[in-house]
């Protein structure tokens, strides 16, 4: 029976009172042994059958349920003498220091107590933390020399770690401590931060110990038939044994010393029972020398109950495998191996309209792909189809009200995730496409948000269970809904690598296609509409790439921006740009400009951005799908490759590069000379040495850039590598510079390489040599190759990068964890304020302007220029 759900209105934390412990206890535990010779648990032992059942087949003596249903029941141990609860040892100390030794009143005058009560009341009303006030009470009460109530003289009480209290040289026994705490009046306890209703101070000194149910400390039977007890049980055995001896000795009237010793021992066992890692207490050990895992150890740390079991949930209906690319999938789709589809199920309720369909699935059973693994009867009983001998029988029996757990099929909504899940786009909803083979397949456009590549990456898939969840995921988490990043208000999903190159090749100025070629393109993309109007030149009909591209643009789109290849000339010639870098789209027609990274690249696409914002996510998805297919067709038609000879430079280029480097080295030696002769002028705020270093670094980096420019000049846009770098498809001009011209200065922590032998980096140089070569300037290119010294310096610079990445990943992971913990329950309320879980306002308006970054134009709420542009061009 499912109980009616109720709303929890409040939670209150307090201390367990001895009476309460006895009340919840089902058995008083007095025997230290667990099982007798026949293997039956002792009554009154730690495995008392009244404490619950762990053995299958037995019934609980208290509630009559079997294993799994019986939650277990508490028992208790009566201590012969009270014992300090180690978790409260510090607090007890604070309290003892604040109360009178004879009358146990808080050593503050009645007026002050009233004043503090008022402050506490106020703080409570405001929902503030009481710690500050209570800390203040402790501080002032401690200072009193005499009790203002009974006039008794006071001594400072020293805390003797871990659980002793020394007053004026005398050790207070737990009995003394408890007596004093008992005498504190309820009204005084309140000032000390206690709520006497649920936690009286004296309850911090234990007289009764609750014994956890056996279900919380199950014993395991080893292969040999031997029973092995839980660490907690071991510890409880110790406690009972010593407690027993203590009470026997007390009864027998043993000498004071012996009783003290046993008492101390009991304190030790109870302390380690709660926490086996208390400073100053040797940890209790197992026979093998392994420290016992007691209560605190069960909860604490990464492997503890909280972080491992409560925050770290494990889930069903999930799958994980290697990912691989599939450009033919929709960006919304994910290719799922049949093997996984057969294992993962969706629960479908049987109704008159789907009953025939579901019957067919049930009939096919768990092993034939579109089938089902379970059926659930109307009364909730599950039938596993793999165990049913005759599937027809089950198929016959299903009727509305039953539930069929059918295999995953095309179109099911699933969540797809790649760790580390650093932003919300790391988990997105995809539609299933069941495919052969064993990898998850995904469209290349969703690589950037997942930060995925295919060098062995694995991803997780979760099948959503339940209609509401599916609907919610479809609205909020679909890939197409995530095209705009909430980080910077531009698309984070878009074309990459070959998509960009392909689109560029297609829309370049001189790209022309015959009618036949265009037909093939349209076929490949799946376009079925009209052809654009062909251009005629010398009697031959042809189509420009821009025309083909325009076919897929919305007909009322107007847009202009500067492409990635733009050289940022001082005066922009706009449409007449010699590089065709000024993109103008008028009425859905690409008038000028090339399509490159700035059009539809991830993190950069202007055109894509416009389409998502003006035409909606569904249109954007379609656009991205066709555009990438178009681009891939184009790149396949033209053919595209790059190789090491793309970095070949003619000999005069090499000469020019050498000249540049020579003159830079010349300039550096001039700088050094100037420094040595003392005519170098220091830069403001820098020492002479720093100035020299900066100037040298600057000179050398300029020289490297210049060599890069020379290389770029000779390589030109015809060069595949340069093309990719310029249009933003892959690589950068710096990469090319290093490959073709000059690797440049190697640095460690932002400085030229300087550590090493006395006065020099390597013994190959003279002492005091601060020239380029001696400090790690690599003048060769990767293509040419480095000499041993350059190679070594390069390794030094490279090592820093490796260390950085290794150290950073661990550090940023921890930082992320702390940020998540701090921010997880912030939420924008209906009054536009950002508040925490307790209703505390964090921000009056979200971000100060209430704007959702993903709806902004790269962070700006309005882009006036774009609006003007749109209107003006529309008219023109």
């Amino acid at each position: 029976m499912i109980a009616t759900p109720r709303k929890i209105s409040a939670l209150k934390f307090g201390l367990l009172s001895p009476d309460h412990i006895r009340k919840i206890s089902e058995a008083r535990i007095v025997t230290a042994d667990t099982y007798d010779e026949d293997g039956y648990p002792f009554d009154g032992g730690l495995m008392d059958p009244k404490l619950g059942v762990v053995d299958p087949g037995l019934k609980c003596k208290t509630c009559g349920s079997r294993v799994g249903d019986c939650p277990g029941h508490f028992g208790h141990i009566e201590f012969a003498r009270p014992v300090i609860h180690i978790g409260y040892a510090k607090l007890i100390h604070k309290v003892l220091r604040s109360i009178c030794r004879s009358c146990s009143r808080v050593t503050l005058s009645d007026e002050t107590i009233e004043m503090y009560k008022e402050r506490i009341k106020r703080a409570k009303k405001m929902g503030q933390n009481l710690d500050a006030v209570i800390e203040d009470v402790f501080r002032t009460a401690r200072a009193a020399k005499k009790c203002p109530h009974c006039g008794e003289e006071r001594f400072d009480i020293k805390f003797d770690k871990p659980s002793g209290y020394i007053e004026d040289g005398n050790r207070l026994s737990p009995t003394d401590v408890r007596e004093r705490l008992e005498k504190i009046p309820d009204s005084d306890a309140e000032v000390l931060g206690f709520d006497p209703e649920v936690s009286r101070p004296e309850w911090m000194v234990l007289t009764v110990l609750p014994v956890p149910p056996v279900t919380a400390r199950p014993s395991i039977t080893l292969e040999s038939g031997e029973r092995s007890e839980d660490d907690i049980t071991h510890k409880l055995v110790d406690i009972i044994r010593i407690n027993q001896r203590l009470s026997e000795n007390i009864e027998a009237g043993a000498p004071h010393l012996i009783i003290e010793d046993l008492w101390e021992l009991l304190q030790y066992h109870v302390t380690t029972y709660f926490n086996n890692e208390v400073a100053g207490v040797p940890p209790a050990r197992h026979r093998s020398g392994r420290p016992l895992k007691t209560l605190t150890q069960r909860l604490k740390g990464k492997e503890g109950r909280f972080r491992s079991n409560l925050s770290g949930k494990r889930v069903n209906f999930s799958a994980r495998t290697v990912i691989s690319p599939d450009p033919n999938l929709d960006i919304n789709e994910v290719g799922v191996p049949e093997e996984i589809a057969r294992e993962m199920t969706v629960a479908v309720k049987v109704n008159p309209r789907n009953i025939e369909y579901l019957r067919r699935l049930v009939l096919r059973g768990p092993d034939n792909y579109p089938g089902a693994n379970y059926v659930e009867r109307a009364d909730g009983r599950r039938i596993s189809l793999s165990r049913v001998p005759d599937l027809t029988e089950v198929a016959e029996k299903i009727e509305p009200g039953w539930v069929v757990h059918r295999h995953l099929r095309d179109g099911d909504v699933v969540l797809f995730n790649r760790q580390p899940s650093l932003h919300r786009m790391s988990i997105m909803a995809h539609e299933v496409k069941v495919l052969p083979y064993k990898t998850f397949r995904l469209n290349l456009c969703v690589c950037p948000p997942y930060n995925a590549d295919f060098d062995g990456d694995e991803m997780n898939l979760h099948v959503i269970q339940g209609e509401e969840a599916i609907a919610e995921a479809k609205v909020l988490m679909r890939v197409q809904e995530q095209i705009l990043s909430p980080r910077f208000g531009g698309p984070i999903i878009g074309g990459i690598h070959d998509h960009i190159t392909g689109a560029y090749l297609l829309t370049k100025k001189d790209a022309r296609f015959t009618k036949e070629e265009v037909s093939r393109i349209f076929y490949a993309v799946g376009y079925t509409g009209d052809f654009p109007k062909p251009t005629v030149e010398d009697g031959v009909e042809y189509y420009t790439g821009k025309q083909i591209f325009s076919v897929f643009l919305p007909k009322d789109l107007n847009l202009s921006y500067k492409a990635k290849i733009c050289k940022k000339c001082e005066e922009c010639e706009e449409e007449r740009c010699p590089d065709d870098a000024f993109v103008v789209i008028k009425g859905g027609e690409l008038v000028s400009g090339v399509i490159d990274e700035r059009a539809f690249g991830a993190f950069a696409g202007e055109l894509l951005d416009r389409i998502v914002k003006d035409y909606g996510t569904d249109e954007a998805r379609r656009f991205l799908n066709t555009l990438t297919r178009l681009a891939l067709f184009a790149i396949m038609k033209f053919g595209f490759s790059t190789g090491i000879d793309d970095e070949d430079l003619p000999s005069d280029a090499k000469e020019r590069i050498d000249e540049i480097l020579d003159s830079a080295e010349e300039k550096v030696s001039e700088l050094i000379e100037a420094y040595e002769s003392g005519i170098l002028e220091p830069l403001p705020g820098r020492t002479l040495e720093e100035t020299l270093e900066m100037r040298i670094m600057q000179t050398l980096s300029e020289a490297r850039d210049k060599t890069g420019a020379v290389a770029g000049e000779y390589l030109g846009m015809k060069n595949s590598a340069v093309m990719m770098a310029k249009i933003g498809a892959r690589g950068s001009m710096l990469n090319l510079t290093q490959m073709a011209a000059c690797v440049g200065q190697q640095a460690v922590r932002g400085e030229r390489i300087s550590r090493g032998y006395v006065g020099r980096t390597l013994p190959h140089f003279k002492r005091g040599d601060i020239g380029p070569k001696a400090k790690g300037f690599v003048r060769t290119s990767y293509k040419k190759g480095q000499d041993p010294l350059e190679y070594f310096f390069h390794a030094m610079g490279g090592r820093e990068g490796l260390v950085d990445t290794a150290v950073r990943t661990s550090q940023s992971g921890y930082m992320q964890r702390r940020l998540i913990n701090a921010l997880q329950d912030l939420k924008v309320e209906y009054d536009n304020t950002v508040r925490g879980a307790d209703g505390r306002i964090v921000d009056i308006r979200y971000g100060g302007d209430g704007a959702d970054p993903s709806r902004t134009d790269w962070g700006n709420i309005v882009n006036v220029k774009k609006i003007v542009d749109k209107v003006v061009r529309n008219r023109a």
Partner: protein
Amino acid sequence: MDRKSVLELFLKRRELVKQHIDSYNDFIENRLQNVITETGELMTDVDLAVRFGKIDVGKAEIIEADGSRRKITPSEARLRNMNYFSPIKLEMGLVKIHEDGTREEKDMEWVVIGQMPTMLRSTRCNLYGLSDEELVRNGEDPLDPGGYFIVNGSERMLVTIEDLAPNKIILEKNKGYTKIEEVAKVFSKRGGFRALTTVQRDREGMISVNFPSVPGDLPLIVVMKALGLETDKEIVDSISNDPEIVQKLLENIEENLDIQTTEDAMEVIGKKVAHGQTREYRLKRAEQVIDRYLLPHLGVEPEDRLRKAYYIGRMVERVFELAFNKRNVDDKDHYANKRLRLAGDLLDDLFRVSFYNLVRDIKYQLERQVARGKEPSIQTAVRRDVLTERIRHALATGNWVGGRTGVSQLLDRTTYMAVVSHLRRVISPLSRSQPHFEARDLHSTQFGKICPTETPEGPNCGLVKNLALSTELSTGADAGELDKVLAELKVTPIHKH
């Protein structure tokens, strides 16, 4: 220059793991004996003592279940999951001490005290000196480099550990607002004992000395006077003649005017190390502490005190020079300040502790024999498992003495290159969880010694290194030999004027 032929010649010798084999051989031939000699004589609580003589390690052998002994090849040990160990024989002799104190020394006899793991291709290995054909006949790959051990049939190797050089003064400067500004540190190492001695200068220019077993710091003047330099002149002379430093030294001396004689100084130390004891005992303890725990690498006898004083003087001078910007802090990552601890050094550590355990066990066994009224016998008092088990366990698990883990590793047999690379691996004891940026950097001084390219990515980056291809390691020289050479060069030892 044709580097290729040089390299070919080098590789032809196939001695890529020469360092480990050399180090192991040195350990077996010389250092083992040193351990025994340093241990001295075993005194029991009954009227017995045991003398130790020569130690010798035999060739690898096994003792079959029927008790028979036989030479074993490594491949047999691997296949049968056995140990490739050699017997350790030690000359021992009982000494009976009569009530009047006279000693009756019985004859020395050879006793097998346990087994030592045998490094493959070392002098104690049964493959030593075999030709390629003979190796093949014994089931061994002639190209296998050796340099590892076989424990329970698995191949275990001891990775080289990179350590800060012992017995070397390292200067450090404390950053930020601290009381102590400049520190000179020495990890003084004598045998297996390491004692960190520091000389530090606080913000006021006061120098203090810190060494093990003395809680807190001692003023420089106290230490110097305790070491026998009683006059101010002697102290200053042992440190520096730089007027700036002398000035500061005089300030130090003025601070400690109440301590004049060596005895005064000893009294101060005695109060720290044996507080609340009799004066006589305090002085005795103070002397002991000074001799044993202060810079023990210079000696542990009262005669060595002068040398210690001058050594401290040098440390003080450096600290002042650092304070006056006449000297820079030492670069801890400079490879001159590093020492590589090879298989022999690691086994030395392990054997020392294991042998000490054995000695304690022998003592216990002898006392028991006497208590039971039996005729004491060394042969039965030595339980060889005590030593063997301890060494075997450490090697099999990698849990070394001193709580270090991962010292021995399973030899990586993925490919031949993996084997060679693994045997030439160098690990740094620095924690991998802390950034330690500087220690992970490729240091200029590693040129030619450490491979600049081969280091793992991830948390161990730069802490796990590999020796460069042509690196060979020397095993270190005997200090006595060096003394002789210096004496021949007319270098005179320090003496009091």
